[in-house]
């Protein structure tokens, strides 16, 4: 009987410890909050992230991020929550798939096309124009004459 009572007590203690551990919010680092906030667009601003905006709305959004992280969500899960509410519009960098790939690939395509154009033009400009005079052949007598004239000139 006594042993049963001790067992019950231990079980109750274990349950209490477990439940308090579960209920206690996870400590959240401000770095993580900032990391998630920096990925999200401030909805009331122009071209500012939630991390950078001083607006009240952004402050509230940072508080929501902190709260969700404290409740045990991963940064990606928190981001997904915002995407579910606002759509991909909320993300500062569009995900690299589908139509969005254009945004990532087009600049690269333009740079390559630019390089090709420059290469072609440089080749064209440096190529000797057709029909230009052939250089005069220099034989021994000619080079001797040049040497003499240079020496006389100096």
């Amino acid at each position: 009987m006594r042993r049963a009572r001790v067992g019950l007590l231990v079980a109750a203690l274990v349950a209490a410890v477990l439940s308090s551990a579960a209920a206690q919010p996870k400590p959240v680092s401000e770095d993580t909050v900032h990391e998630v906030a920096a990925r999200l667009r401030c909805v009331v601003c122009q071209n500012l992230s939630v991390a950078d905006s001083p607006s009240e709305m952004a402050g509230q959004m940072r508080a929501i991020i902190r709260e969700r992280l404290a409740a045990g969500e991963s940064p990606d899960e928190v981001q997904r929550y915002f995407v579910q509410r606002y759509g991909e519009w909320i993300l500062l960098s569009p995900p690299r798939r589908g139509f969005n790939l254009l945004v990532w690939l087009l600049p690269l395509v333009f740079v390559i096309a630019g390089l090709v154009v420059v290469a072609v033009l440089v080749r064209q400009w440096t190529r000797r124009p057709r029909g230009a005079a052939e250089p005069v052949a220099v034989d021994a007598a000619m080079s001797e004459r040049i040497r003499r004239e240079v020496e006389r000139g100096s």
Partner: protein
Amino acid sequence: MKRLWRWLIPLAALPVLVLLAYGFRMSPRDIPSPLLQKPAPAFGLTALDGAPLALASHRGKVVVLNFWASWCYPGCYEEAPVLEKNWRAYRERGVVVLGVAIQDKREAIEKFVKDFGLTFPNAQDVTGTVSVDYGVYGVPETFFLDRQGRIRVKHVSAVTDTVFRDTVERLLAETETR
């Protein structure tokens, strides 16, 4: 070769122009909500008069959920009388108008409600949780919920008589079983 170049440069500019034309013709205010046709997020706020304001207690009604702020001029000032008038006209027909004031001060909210003589329930979203849950990015924004509690229409900018009447009549006309 020269002929080709003469055509290639304008041709290369064409896709860019098409992309720009597409981009500039879209209104930056028209961001489609991913919440359309989805169940409206539940919320529980406290109305200005102290009564609890929960979405769940209006199940089975057509709900007009309006996000506003006292600093939102002229949009919110234009639609406040429209909302009040239509709330009075439709409340007996199973329509409820709920106001949620966001990013605002309590005194300013109370003054706004008093000035316009609003009689439908209004609450302050102090933490911004409800507005983020609904993906609100500005005021005024209004969500029209059907009897099943799904978000059917998101209206950005002031609600007009026509918008209110047309949307609500359409949602009322739907049978309960839909």
